[in-house]
């Protein structure tokens, strides 16, 4: 059966060049990067080279790059690490209603520990209003955490402006840029952020590796203690092959993201147009302009997203619902709810997220397969009768 992968916001296939770069570090270059001998030096050199590549991608300094186990750990380290360290300066955190659970749950944990949290609303496109941030800031506010681009709908937040507001008031700013890196320009100096999370497998690198960018001078408490790895901020023997892979992925992203993003955006726009032309009663979720070039979130009225996804899977096409973690429950996506999408509409949402491996034929295939599925499901839907 023909297989088409359109779920790149969940994870990406590894770039072949990444795999190639990693292989020696599973085989002969197996040293511990902390060892003094030649085996160790070999590994250390590779880790530091990868650090430089990641720094270059983000326009950061290598010493501002900390390797973690992935995006989730980076978010935890930034949020809990900063708040624990700076507790005496205040107990208020600001974030948004549409963050990934890897931000929402650490923040909830802090809430249980006595921190106060403000969850900023978003408009119907999923954008945060600068005025809302200004209004939410109090003398107690120590950290603002706002994602750079939303994983479900792809909406891009005005991070530069938001970060400026916090910086002017001396408040640290973290952004979860897991979905943004490699798809749009991410320059930590221009953005003016203090912390930024990224994940390896979202940029065609390996799983189990990520980065937290920590601006020089910002102090945090480590979550994992042990040896003196990663400037005492993240103990544990470095995952050298994964770090090497991430370095290679960062290098490729830096050189190729612009061209690829443009190509993918054309495919995405073709897909969006094709769906709107062929299928009635659909709603595009996300910002028309400020949106990741690869992401398309569509609500198909009168049908359940889960049924669409399973039917597409049976045709070999991989997509996901807006709410991958709540599959089958009556709970609609928190992102779509925050955007004011009615609950029944939100249930019929599907996320198409394109990537490097997608070609025009994939879009054609989807546009051929999808309309009859929607039509068939609607015929069976009690909500649809009479339309």
């Amino acid at each position, binding site marked *: 059966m023909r297989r088409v992968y359109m779920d790149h916001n969940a994870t990406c296939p590894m770039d072949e060049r990444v795999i190639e770069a990693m292989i020696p570090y599973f085989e002969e270059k197996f040293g511990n990067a902390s060892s003094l001998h030649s085996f160790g030096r070999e590994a250390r050199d590779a880790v530091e080279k990868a650090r430089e590549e990641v720094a270059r991608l983000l326009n950061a300094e290598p010493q501002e790059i900390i390797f973690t186990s992935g995006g989730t750990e980076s978010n935890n380290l930034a949020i809990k690490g900063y708040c624990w360290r700076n507790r005496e300066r205040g107990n208020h955190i600001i974030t948004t209603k549409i963050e990934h659970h890897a931000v929402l749950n650490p923040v909830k944990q802090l809430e249980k520990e006595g921190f106060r949290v403000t969850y900023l609303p978003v408009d119907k496109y999923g954008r945060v209003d600068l005025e809302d941030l200004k209004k939410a800031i109090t003398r107690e506010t120590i950290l603002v955490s706002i994602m750079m681009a939303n994983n479900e709908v792809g909406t891009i937040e005005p991070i530069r402006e938001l970060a400026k507001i916090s910086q002017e008031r001396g408040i640290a700013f973290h952004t979860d840029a897991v979905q943004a890196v490699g798809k749009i320009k991410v320059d930590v100096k221009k953005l003016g952020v203090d912390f930024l999370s990224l994940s390896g497998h979202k940029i065609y690198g390996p799983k189990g590796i990520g980065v937290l960018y920590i601006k020089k001078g910002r102090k945090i408490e480590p979550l994992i203690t042990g040896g003196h790895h990663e400037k005492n901020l993240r103990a544990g023997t470095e995952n050298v092959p994964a770090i090497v892979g991430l370095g290679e992925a960062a290098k490729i992203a830096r050189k190729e993201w612009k061209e690829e993003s443009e190509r993918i955006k054309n495919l995405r726009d073709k897909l969006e147009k094709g769906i709107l032309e062929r299928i009635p009663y659909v709603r595009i979720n996300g910002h028309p302009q400020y949106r990741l070039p690869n992401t398309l979130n569509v609500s198909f009225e009168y049908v359940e997203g889960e049924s669409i996804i399973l039917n597409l899977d*049976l045709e070999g096409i991989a997509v996901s619902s807006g709410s991958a973690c709540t*599959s*089958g429950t*009556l709970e609609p996506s928190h992102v779509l709810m925050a955007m004011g999408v009615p609950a029944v509409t939100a249930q019929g949402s599907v996320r198409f997220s394109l990537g490097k491996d997608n070609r025009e034929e994939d879009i054609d295939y989807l546009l051929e397969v999808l309309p009859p599925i929607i039509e068939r499901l609607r015929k069976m839907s009690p909500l649809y009768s009479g339309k």
Partner: protein
Amino acid sequence: MRKKRAVVALSGGVDSAFSAYLMLESGYEVIGIFLKLFGSEYSGWFSESRARKVAEFLKIPFYSLNFREKFEKKVISYFINSYLKGETPNPCIVCNRYIKFGYLLNKALELGGECLVTGHYARIKEENGEWGLFRGVDVDKDQSYFLFPLLEKPLSKIYFPLGEWRKERVHQEARRIGIPALFHESQEVCFLEGRGIKEFLTKEGGVSICPGPIITTEGKIVGEHPGVYFFTIGQRRGLKIKLGEPYYIKEIIPEENKIVIGKREEIYSSILEAEEVIADKNFPLKQGDIVEAKIRYLVKPEKAEVIYWDGRRIRLRFFHPQWAVTPGQAVVLYREDRVIAGGWIRRGVRENGNH
């Protein structure tokens, strides 16, 4: 030409696994679905991983779907309410009605399935252009009792391949093929997960359980029970009373926290009243009909006469009085092998009119 598609509910057990195998053998494209119904991610993990292994073994697509909220709303709350009313609930029938042959059947059809297949021991057959529900060939294992709500479902969209099989043969064949399913399935109420009814009702149902009086049919207090919810009609064990001759539970009255006991002969009823009856529209019932009625899973059907029938409520008079007619259980009516109606028992009445 595209193969016909069948959606099989895989529980991880041997019956559903072998059903999926039989569908593949008869040329269907098969999709396996596991239902997450209760408990945490962890508690259902064992069966789910077995179901996954079965799907992998058969090389069929497999989906694990989360039906927890629906199950909670339709089955668990029914189960708790039934106890609160002093009944002995039968959650499997309710699950079949709303979950397996409700939501899951819809899902199967949405997935383009010709039919939903489960590992039940019962048969669905077409006779003279009409679809009917029949007992399974294996009389010891027959599960048609639990399936009477299917009489109001589209029977042509449901299929039980094991209806023609004997359980031992299914096990033998499944072992021979090497299906990696669970061969020993618990007969317990699945969502209790090994917990006692007391723990479940207090923790999940927020029910307070306290001791109360045991009285005879004459109204004499003869003992104390630890809580009405641990007992069922006809039960003798656990009463801890000594009255010279055996006494059995005749009635449970939760609103007064009372248990009424009676002598052996008082537990028999010849008249049974049932409500919410679902009947096969191809076999219209009428007053005076003689049917075979099964009043719980583990007893044989007994001859009875329909003495009242209004389309929803039924009253039956048994040829021989029945032991422990239990409110909350189902009564299922058969004509030979065919299920012609089923409903929920409200009460049993002794012939002289005393209840």
